[in-house]
């Protein structure tokens, strides 16, 4: 185990490798294009030379003598018969050729100008300019220099240099061979390179023309042995073979004095192979292909893109000690816990250092082997001796290994209850996508989690899988426990409210427990309370000799004893005049001294994102109390809902026949109204809206009429759907669904829209062949007058699918677009950090904000964005006198930007909401 502080890499310098260096660091020169001989042994001075490292287990490296995994691999080199241009530097080579004299090699600037540029570089450096600023500066310098037609140093006339992509230079149309280019670059003196943005110490320009090519170690390009016994070489090896072959032929031809034409052709071919060896996607040349026709993956392809070395292997790393499986719910777990199946717990291990205090316990643990019998107990999979040797513990050797256990050994113990692990679900869009849980080893094969932690992970149980990581060091465990545990993440830093809270049935349960304060007899009370332990049953109220408990009383049990809050619950009707405590809907919540006095608790009280009680407890009573509260509310709510029983079905959308008739009637008149509008549009008597065409005016009017029709249907249906209806309870309490969903099920589905307009595409002048050409009526353009319950007819069903399809396409497009936006945001902002002086700076120490958010408040601790809650201040200082200063928060009306007119527009948005599939799960 590593102890203490490891060394840090201070900085990394990038530079070019000179040909001499290439040769110097080379373990061997490569001359033959063949890899293995007939017996399957690598050929010396071939591409698989054993000097280049080992890939086969058992063999030793001929350079360093180490075995596989110990030998890092060694570079070789190829001496190129003729120099060749490095494609990556082609732009810089061009720049240099143009900016320097063709005869004396000096930069085409006067000495004065060079001084000016030098001083500018210095001043840019002083002003904190980065590499990019220098890059722009040198670009301009080169441009100025290349514009000069005559060398100020030797008065030679300059010719025009052009680049034939990808690698051919021409001077006034005459081809410049790489050799000539190299000679020119060699002539540039060191002192002239600085203004051109090149550091001669790290990169002499002539090094950009290759005379020797480094051959990467075999460990970089391992060959694989197929099942058939055949070897399959890496793409890079294939490419090197090509280079070697042509290089060989070029050398032979040149030495034999072959015609210039042939030599030049071969030279060009060599250039092609070297070019594609670096970058096989160079524009202007066909990519080199594998025998199968697949383009080769050469050096640049290995590095770039999502699957490249940088993003795939360096920015993200594969880990051990992790597990992945399906998740399923378990309301009896705490939000802090995660249920881990035994099979996974036996594989995942935690290292424990053996010392004189725990050696006996450890010895017993090792002795019980990797799979102790009986109830789950952690076994031991490995024992690591002080010299680093790892011993696998099996049933057979358990006893002996236990005997040999000494202080300073480390054992790898299996998971046990209470271990801290990280739990994660992709996509990891925010930090709450990875939180620390405590392990509970359980039967079964799935990870179990409390339902309240679904929202931060955005998890459901339709087959979602999640990952689990076991922490391996004490520091990591401490950090995870203090900062990453679920209870520390109840308040979201996004909006300063709880992101973990009661959902779905829990909200319904709490609603039933508190709405209109139901009474429970002893049996019911005990049933409800039996779900959570360690609480005394409160004193019952005795009335006429009958003892009973009220729901509000029971809920008060889970509140802190000095808790105080006042707010309106989500069933609030927003009456003009609030009757407060005497609210007829029981929507005015008042809690004093930890007792719920009036009001119904629902999503506004305990729900995620809105829960006011939750919000306050998490902020003022600490995360542990908040966790306890959520756990207890969950259990209480389940007790309450199970006491009553709760279900919803198709008959919840039953409405009386007369209401159905009314809706049908209204729909009919609306449809007639639409045809009248269409009629007046045809006759030209429709009043045109200012700034709109006649067609647009018609559409707006029709949408308005049909929107009203749907709303009216919803209203009529709503009249017959009261709070005795389970579906309505869910909608009103904020547990799930909305009244819009209900009115679509019971009343009328309404207008279908694509891109916010009525349906119009399909056939010529009509949506479907069932309608007349040019029919602009309601039915022909996607108005669905049926309800989901009554069932859609064929055309309606088709139109509904059109709307639904748009929603799906939208989601697909959106995820990729927003994913890229987030990647860019993260990349731009990852370096920003709050300093101890209250400023926000990036890691280059540039101040971005003098005071974070203008007040230095942590959004997670702010109260809905406000720095402090004045209510708390008054209560703290004035006690009960605070009542007089109390202001119950009103629901924020849409006061900003769009004002009253927003109501007029509502029907647009609702019409668009129609095709929003509100079922979350879209695996």
């Amino acid at each position, binding site marked *: 185990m590593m102890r203490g502080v490891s060394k840090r890499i201070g900085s990394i310098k990038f530079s070019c490798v000179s040909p001499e260096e290439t040769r110097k660091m080379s373990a061997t020169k490569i001359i033959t294009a063949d890899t293995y001989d007939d017996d399957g042994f690598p050929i010396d001075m071939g591409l698989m030379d054993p000097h280049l490292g080992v890939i086969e287990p058992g063999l030793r490296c001929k350079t360093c003598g180490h075995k596989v995994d110990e030998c890092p691999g060694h570079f070789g080199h190829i001496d190129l018969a003729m120099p060749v241009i490095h494609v990556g530097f082609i732009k810089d080579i061009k720049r240099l050729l143009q900016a320097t004299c063709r005869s004396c090699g000096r930069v085409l600037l006067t000495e004065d100008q060079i001084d000016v540029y030098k001083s500018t570089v210095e001043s840019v450096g002083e002003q904190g300019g980065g*590499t990019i600023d220098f890059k722009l500066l040198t670009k301009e310098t080169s441009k100025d220099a290349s514009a000069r037609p005559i060398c100020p140093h030797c008065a030679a006339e300059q010719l025009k240099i052009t680049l034939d992509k990808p690698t051919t230079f021409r001077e006034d149309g005459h081809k410049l061979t790489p050799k000539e280019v190299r000679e020119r670059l060699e002539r540039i003196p060191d002192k002239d390179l600085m203004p051109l943005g090149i550091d001669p110490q790290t990169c002499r320009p002539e090094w950009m023309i290759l005379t020797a090519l480094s051959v990467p170690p075999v460990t970089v390009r391992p060959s694989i042995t197929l099942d058939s016994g055949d070897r399959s070489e890496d793409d890079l090896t294939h490419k090197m073979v090509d280079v070697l072959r042509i290089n060989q032929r070029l050398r032979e031809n040149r030495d034999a004095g072959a015609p210039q034409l042939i030599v030049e052709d071969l030279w060009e071919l060599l250039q092609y192979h070297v070019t594609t060896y670096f970058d096989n996607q160079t524009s202007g040349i066909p990519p080199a292909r594998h025998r199968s026709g697949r383009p080769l993956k050469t050096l640049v392809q290995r590095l770039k893109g999502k699957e490249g070395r940088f993003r795939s292997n360096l920015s993200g790393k594969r880990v051990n000690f992790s597990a992945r499986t399906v998740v399923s719910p378990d309301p009896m777990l705490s939000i802090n816990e995660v249920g881990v199946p035994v099979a996974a717990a036996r594989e995942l291990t935690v290292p424990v250092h053996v010392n004189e205090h725990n050696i006996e316990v450890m010895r017993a643990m090792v002795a019980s082997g990797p799979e102790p019998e009986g109830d789950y107990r952690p076994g031991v999979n490995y024992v690591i001796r002080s010299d680093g040797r790892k011993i696998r513990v099996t049933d057979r050797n358990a006893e002996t290994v236990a005997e040999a256990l000494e202080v300073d050994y480390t054992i790898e113990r299996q998971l046990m209850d209470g271990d801290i692990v990280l739990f994660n679900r992709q996509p990891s869009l925010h930090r709450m996508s990875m939180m620390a849980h405590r392990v509970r080893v359980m039967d079964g094969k799935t990870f179990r989690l409390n339902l309240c932690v679904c929202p931060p992970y955005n998890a459901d149980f339709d087959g979602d899988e999640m990952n689990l990581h076991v922490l391996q060091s004490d520091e990591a465990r401490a950090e995870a426990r203090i900062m990453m545990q679920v209870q520390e993440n109840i308040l979201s830093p996004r909006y300063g409210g709880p992101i973990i809270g009661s959902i779905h049935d829990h909200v319904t349960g709490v609603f039933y427990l508190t709405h209109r304060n139901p009474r429970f007899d002893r049996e019911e009370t005990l049933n409800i309370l039996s779900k959570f332990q360690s609480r005394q049953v409160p004193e019952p109220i005795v009335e006429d000799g009958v003892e009973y408990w009220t729901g509000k009383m029971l809920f008060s049990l889970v509140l802190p004893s000095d808790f105080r809050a006042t707010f309106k619950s989500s069933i609030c009707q927003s009456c003009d005049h609030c009757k407060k405590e005497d609210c007829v809907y029981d929507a005015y919540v008042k809690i004093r001294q930890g007792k719920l006095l009036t009001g119904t608790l629902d999503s506004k009280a305990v729900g995620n994102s809105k829960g006011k009680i939750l919000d306050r407890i998490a902020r003022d009573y600490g995360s542990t109390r908040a966790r306890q509260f959520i756990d207890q509310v969950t259990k209480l709510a389940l007790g309450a809902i199970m006491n009553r029983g709760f279900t919803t079905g198709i008959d919840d959308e039953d409405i009386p026949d007369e209401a159905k008739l009314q809706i049908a009637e209204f729909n009919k008149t609306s449809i007639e109204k639409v045809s009248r509008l269409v009629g007046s549009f045809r006759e030209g008597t429709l009043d045109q809206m200012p700034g709109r065409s006649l067609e647009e005016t018609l559409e707006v009017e029709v949408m308005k009429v049909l929107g009203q029709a749907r709303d009216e249907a919803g209203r009529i249906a709503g009249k017959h759907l009261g709070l005795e209806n389970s579906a309505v309870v869910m909608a009103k309490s904020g547990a799930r669904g909305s009244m819009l969903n209900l009115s679509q099920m019971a009343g009328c589905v309404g207008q279908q829209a694509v891109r916010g307009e009525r349906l119009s595409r399909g056939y010529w002048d009509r949506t479907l062949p069932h309608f007349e050409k040019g029919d602009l009526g309601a039915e022909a353009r996607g108005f669905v007058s049926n309800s989901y319950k009554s069932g859609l007819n064929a055309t309606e069903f088709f139109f509904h699918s059109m709307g639904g399809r748009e929603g799906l396409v*939208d989601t697909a497009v959106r995820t990729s677009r927003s994913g890229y936006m987030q990647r860019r945001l993260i990349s731009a902002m*990852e370096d920003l950090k*709050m300093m101890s002086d209250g400023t926000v700076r990036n890691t*280059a120490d540039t101040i971005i904000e003098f005071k974070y958010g203008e007040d230095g408040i942590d959004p997670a601790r*702010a109260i809905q964005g406000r720095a402090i809650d004045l209510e708390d201040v008054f209560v703290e200082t004035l006690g009960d006198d605070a009542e007089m200063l109390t202001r119950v928060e009103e629901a924020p009306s849409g006061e900003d930007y769009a004002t009253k007119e927003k109501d007029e527009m509502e029907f647009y948005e609702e019409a668009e909401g129609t095709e929003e599939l509100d079922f979350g799960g879209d695996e």
Partner: protein
Amino acid sequence: MAKKDTIKALQRREIDEESIELLLGSFNSLGEIASATLNDLVELGFENEAAEGLMSKVKGRSSPRSSAPKVKKAAKEEKPPVQMSMVNKTRKLSDMEEHLQTMAEELELEIPLKIIVDIASRVKDADLPEAKLQEIIRSAERMFAAHKMDSNESAGIVAAQSIGEPGTQMTMRTFHYAGVAEINVTLGLPRLIEIVDARRVPSTPMMEVLLLPPASDEEQFARRVASEIEMTTLIDIAAIETDITNMRLRIIPDVRKMDQKAIPLEDVYERLNKLRPAKGLVQMGDYDIVVQSDEPSYRKLQLISDAIKNAKIKGIDGIRRAIIRRRGADGWVIFTEGSNLKEVLNVPMVDRSRTVTNSIQEIFEVLGIEAARNSIIKEAHHTLSEQGLNVDIRHIMLVADLMTNDGDVRAIGRHGISGKKSSVLARAAFEITSAHLLHAAIVGEVDNLDGVAENIIVGQPVTLGTGAVKLVYTPKGRKE
């Protein structure tokens, strides 16, 4: 600057050809000439006076995109020091606010003014004793301090996640602008992307032009201002007939429309007469305007016809449509499709202090970087809250502050902030990997491994959060 450009630039400065040739013999660009001294020019063979004239011509309108060294030269020239003063836009504090403010100062408590104002608005009618007020202030300060962000917090990542995560929940459609059904606005994810991209022109530019009293109260005046703003082309107010036999175009004005826009026929005539292809060919009739082609060529006729059709008669470039609406306390307000802040602010009766556009770039150009920053915050916050997404404004502020940090509106992405990072590895890991690495090699760049991405790449702890703390506990060996 290429030689050709330089010659052109000099010609534009009314320098005769002879001098140009002389100048180019020894100078490469306009900037160089501008930075040359009088003596340099005299040496080249100019008369003293001529040289001076040349200098003033060249320097008088120095090229706007002069490179860094030139800027430095220009800065050395003495300019009268610019008088800077700040307009105090804060309102006067009320008595109670004043009182609480001084109280906080006396108690040496650091409380933002906002909190003091909030407290004052609550307690002003309560008549609380002084001691209680003190207690309130103390308690408020204690809570304020408790809610502060911890140092070393990675504020940037939290902000990026807070804005990025709700992106998946946003819609992708354009909506009708709230209140003005006629105008479409891009909202939701595309708009948010547009904002962080710092696009020059938004996909649906739009303005809200507030008016000063007479116009804000009277519809007639408002309509008049709107017609000043809305761009009107000839085709909007007149029909054009092409008379091929006589090689002429007849423009028949639509009297009703012209009245509506208050354009007299003479104005149209004048406008058309200024148009290049039709110059001098326009004749005013009694009820119409005739444009007679001077060449018997159909091509020319077609050319004139095209030019005339889209000729601007009235209004401001870029404003395609202006609609007036009454809006609460603001009275009549003009909503426009298309945006041109600079010109609109010059229209009489427009309230310059409250007129806004959704084009961040325009705000930057007209009102400066701070205004652009506020505009980014406002637009992004509105885009998010309009979708019912709740994001703390501090996150958006951080994005806006980052984008406007160096006095220019920079995009979040390859061409903006990410592309300008100081670390090679961070840039390579983001986009265009190979180009960054190769360039780093020839320049000999050094990566100091300060940032997050670099440290992850080399596999060591990052310098944010717990990784920023350098305190280490070394247990002492126990002595028996």
